[in-house]
């Protein structure tokens, strides 16, 4: 069946401003939108630029706006979105070419929450013990693939690029609620800043956008409570 793609193109070497271009490709209901993009790039117009790698929703390269919502191109099938598909780059980050956005600001926020395990006590000979329940506490937020679909769906982030953003909160949550970690206090100080958790207005765009189905808003809620109560539970 024929599928119509409407792609927002922007080539900084040629265009002053972005414009839509239409392509018609042959597609099956079970094709990924990424397959269609590949068809365009390989057989119709090689200048189309987008990121992709694993093609099954694990690497997080191909987050983009598909029919107005942030999705991974490889996790959306044609039958989910119909035969007219509008594809645009993510909102709130500088577009460098076609569907490619500059990810640097995103990773800067990511780095700002100390997204790494800190425990300076000398480790035991074997593993640090952790109960199944303690492990379960932060399981959800370990799933994050840093695709930026959540952060770029957040109206607070659109309004201000300084907002730390859901993806970084998810990372903070993963470590703050890890019973082995010892740097929760430092991270909470960062989250307590003006552009921290208090800018989250429970809009749930991030939760809806997450391709890994992480309950992001809930995680942020737990972070808010951790700051408020001054303890983690």
């Amino acid at each position: 069946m024929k599928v119509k793609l409407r792609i927002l193109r922007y080539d900084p070497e040629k265009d002053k401003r972005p414009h839509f271009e239409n392509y018609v490709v042959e597609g099956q209901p079970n094709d990924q939108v990424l397959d269609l993009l590949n068809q365009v790039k390989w057989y119709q117009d090689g200048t189309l630029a987008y990121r992709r790698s694993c093609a099954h929703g694990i690497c997080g390269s191909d987050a983009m706006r598909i029919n107005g919502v942030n999705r991974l191109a490889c996790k959306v099938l044609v039958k989910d979105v119909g035969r007219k598909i509008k594809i645009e780059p993510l909102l709130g980050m500088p577009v460098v070419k076609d569907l490619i956005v500059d990810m640097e600001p995103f990773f800067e926020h990511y780095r700002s929450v100390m997204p790494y395990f800190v425990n300076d006590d000398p480790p035991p000979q074997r593993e640090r013990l952790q109960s199944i329940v303690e492990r379960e506490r932060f399981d959800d937020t370990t799933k994050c693939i840093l695709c930026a679909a959540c952060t770029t769906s957040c109206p607070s982030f659109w309004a201000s690029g300084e907002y730390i953003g859901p993806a970084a909160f998810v990372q903070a949550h993963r470590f703050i609620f890890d019973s082995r970690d010892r740097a929760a206090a430092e991270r909470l100080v960062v989250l307590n800043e003006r552009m921290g958790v208090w800018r989250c207005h429970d809009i749930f765009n991030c939760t809806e956008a997450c391709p890994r189905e992480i309950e992001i808003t809930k995680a942020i809620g737990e972070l808010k409570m951790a700051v408020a109560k001054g303890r983690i539970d």
Partner: protein
Amino acid sequence: MALSRRVSFLAGLRYRGKQGMLNFILHRITGLGIVAFVGIHVVAGFFGQQFGDDLSFALNTIYESWQFQLFVYFSVLYHALNGTRLTLMDLFPKLMRFQRELLWLQWAIFVVSFGFPSYFLIQTSLSSS
């Protein structure tokens, strides 16, 4: 050159977020609305009372029209209900798992508590005029 990261208000509105985003927008609009008309109302009331200012009296007359009352009632009720939902979720993050259910509950309460009074309001206003 890379394009600017700025997201215009309209571009933001074009994002097809689900109910949560609609609620967020309504919450902001109703909130700002309440601030605006309560603010003006207080000032107008003060000036009217103290100086017998004509403009203030005129403003107050607008406030008392039933159409405007309906609007204010919508804003206050919506803002109150949505605010309560947000507060509950913020205080008990576990509730966020049921955010969709909470939204439907909120709308159900809203429809009932907005519908009946406004029905009577419109009826009495129309019959009295």
